[in-house]
């Protein structure tokens, strides 16, 4: 089981702040696609979000395992 956290506008769009996916290991690119499928109303912002793994920015080719902390960091639209 991998836990993924949502923040700010993404948390509101998804309607929850923590999402769990039943995998032991997944690439960030695949995690992004799974999240978009699970939360179609948030798919657009998921596509534009950065991903953090263990509190560091991570690229789509990296792997996440069940022992990692994963989070989507939504963009902001400018102030």
């Amino acid at each position, binding site marked *: 089981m991998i836990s993924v956290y949502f*923040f700010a506008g993404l948390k509101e769009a998804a309607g929850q702040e923590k999402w769990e996916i039943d995998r032991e290991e997944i690439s960030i690119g695949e995690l992004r696609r799974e999240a978009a499928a699970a939360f179609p109303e948030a798919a657009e912002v998921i596509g534009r979000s950065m991903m953090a793994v263990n*509190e560091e*920015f991570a*690229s789509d080719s990296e792997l996440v395992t069940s022992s990692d902390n994963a*989070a989507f960091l*939504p*963009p902001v639209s*400018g*102030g």
Partner: protein
Amino acid sequence: MEEKHLFRVMEEPLSADRIQSLVASPDAGAVNLFIGTVREWTKGKRTLSLTYEAYVPMAEKKLAQIGMEIAEKWPGTKTAVHHRTGPLEIGEAAVIIGVASAHREAAIQGSSYAIERIKEIVPIWKKEHWEDGSSWIGDQLETSRYDEGGPDID
């Protein structure tokens, strides 16, 4: 002062005097403090209040990273940054950046560098409550974040 107090994301009101005392040292002849506050009017639009949300452990880690970057670029400087979360009223401080150095140039340049880097790499979001609605937008440092392909992966 403990290093862990230097870079904090917290719900309590921020204090410029506190940041000053955190970065002070006998070797410092200059301290520059930059304070981002909640502005009421932006381009004719009235803000009623703001709410900040952070990914706290990552935000504090990234603030500490910025402090290390500043110490590398301007040797001998000491940096502290406190950022507030939760609901803020007009006029309240959202972020205070303090950089102490022997000479003033490094303190001022380091503060400006911190402002830019906070926008780039620190996961903090601002929800602005206007008279006519609300939305999640850029932080109190005024420009968008993650808006052009996101921050550099480090």
